[in-house]
């Protein structure tokens, strides 16, 4: 039986927060949506228009879009290729080492990504550590920084742990019995991997892929610092629209587009993962 007193409190406490999230989470997104569907008229008012969305299809912006998505996909695939073996090895480590390695993988995720990105500026720069090394080997210095490759390295470096951890989680859930059963039934190692381990690790692959793809496609810092601002990504374009060009309408349409991309990739995960990764409590 619920008492009257508890019913009274029940009806009060969540309202301030409801008001807060309405004002600071819902209204801002509605505003962005409104901006994205309007254009200013010469008379100083606004009118409904889809021209902001139509602008995506101008070749300049299509190039930015495809560059962002392509770079994010490349970074994701490299993370997957580097991370999968690492996760498989981790599963087989002794429990003491495994926890140490896990901790060492979680830790960089908490180092400010600005610092992680900046650290590569110092490595790749004209006078950077890698060029010093090349010179020491008697090789001519290279222009490593401010290139597409540098942006890609920055993305892989920043987001690799986001790939390894979910992979590790799903790989560690595979029972030894399942692998042994397959071996007993005559499967060779490749078959065990292809038919047992790989399919069972798919949820981890999808989660990891999303967790790398989402920040990679929305970054503007990595491309600004390591790409030198030559190759714009969607994030840089949004930043530019809001902070220098001042076309908030187009910037809002780009933001909505980015949200849609993120929502699609999240829906993708929740279909296979049943939302486990994004459940409350999974803060890390």
């Amino acid at each position, binding site marked *: 039986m619920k008492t009257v007193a508890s019913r009274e409190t029940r009806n009060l406490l969540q309202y301030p927060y409801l008001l807060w999230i309405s004002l600071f989470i819902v209204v801002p997104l509605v505003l962005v949506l409104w901006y994205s569907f309007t254009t200013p008229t010469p008379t100083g008012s606004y009118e409904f228009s889809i021209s902001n969305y139509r602008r995506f299809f101008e070749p300049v912006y299509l190039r930015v879009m495809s560059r962002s998505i392509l770079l994010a996909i490349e970074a994701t695939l490299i993370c997957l290729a580097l991370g999968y073996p690492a996760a*498989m090895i981790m599963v087989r480590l002794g429990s003491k080492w495994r926890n140490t390695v896990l901790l060492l993988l979680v830790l960089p995720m908490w*180092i400010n990504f*600005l610092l992680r990105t900046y650290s590569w500026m110092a490595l790749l*720069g004209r006078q950077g*550590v890698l060029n010093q090394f090349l010179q020491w080997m008697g090789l001519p210095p290279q222009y490593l920084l401010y290139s597409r490759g540098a942006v890609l390295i920055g993305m892989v470096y920043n987001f690799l742990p986001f790939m390894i951890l979910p992979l590790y989680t799903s790989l560690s859930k595979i029972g030894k019995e399942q692998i042994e059963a397959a071996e007993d039934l005559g499967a060779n190692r490749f078959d065990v991997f292809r038919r047992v381990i790989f399919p069972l690790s798919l949820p981890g692959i999808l989660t990891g892929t999303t967790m790398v793809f989402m920040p990679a496609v929305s970054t503007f810092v990595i491309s600004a610092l390591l790409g030198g601002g030559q190759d714009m990504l969607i994030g840089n374009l949004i*930043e530019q629209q*809001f902070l220098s060009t001042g076309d908030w309408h187009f910037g809002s349409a780009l933001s909505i587009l980015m949200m849609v991309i993120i929502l699609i990739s999240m829906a993708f995960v929740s279909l296979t993962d049943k939302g486990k990764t994004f459940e409350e409590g999974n803060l890390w």
Partner: protein
Amino acid sequence: MVKLRNRPSLSQIYILLVLLFLYAPIGVLIIFSFNNLRSTSVWGGFSLRWYGELFQDRQILSALYYTLSIAILSSVISAAAGTIAAIGIHRMHPIARKVILAINNVPVLNPDIVTGVSLMTLFTALRLRLGFTTLLLSHVTFNIPYVVLCILPRLRQIPKEVTEAAMDLGATPMYVFFHVILPEIRSAIFTGFLIAFTLSVDDFVISFFTTGSGVNNLPIVVYSMARRGINPKINAVSTLLFITVFCLLMIINKRDTNIQKLEV
């Protein structure tokens, strides 16, 4: 890959290489913050000169002031507001709870840049001048959801009968809150506070869009300096920021024995 099983040395080398890849750049960054030369790649002996210069740099000192005051204010406000919100949400009807939690998760899942520009449009629509207030409001906005997510699981562990028994015995809701609920969730509130503090110190993207009038936090100063090129002062600030966040994490980790559950 499966072959590695019989050759532990090779797999150990691989893990070491991955860890080296993750730590070497940060290591180099920290080492060269103690360099006596202006270079971030040629070693000229140990010195604390860049740290010394930090404390003469007005821009960095003011950023340090804003970083700390925003972090302290926003984490205290978020912890208090998040606690009340979490208790309210906990008592809601399951369907209403689902809705409010979905909205709660928006800043957690949305790309920071979208959260940043959307708050920027809100502040502009409200005719608020971008600066300290807007920065604080933004930090509270992205912090509360984490506090709520921290406290809710703990609230669920309190058996309903306990609060109901207290009520039946004549306790007022206030009494129940301070003497039954609060002791149970106190450590979750503190963990939430620490996470909020860490996130606030660490935030760049949302702050970048929601501040103005000369109010900058350390990450913003690092970004604007880094855009102009490599500078050992950045290494020194970075090292200090790294140590701060590292210490905070150690405290959070030590406090929360359920931390494994929180990891992905």
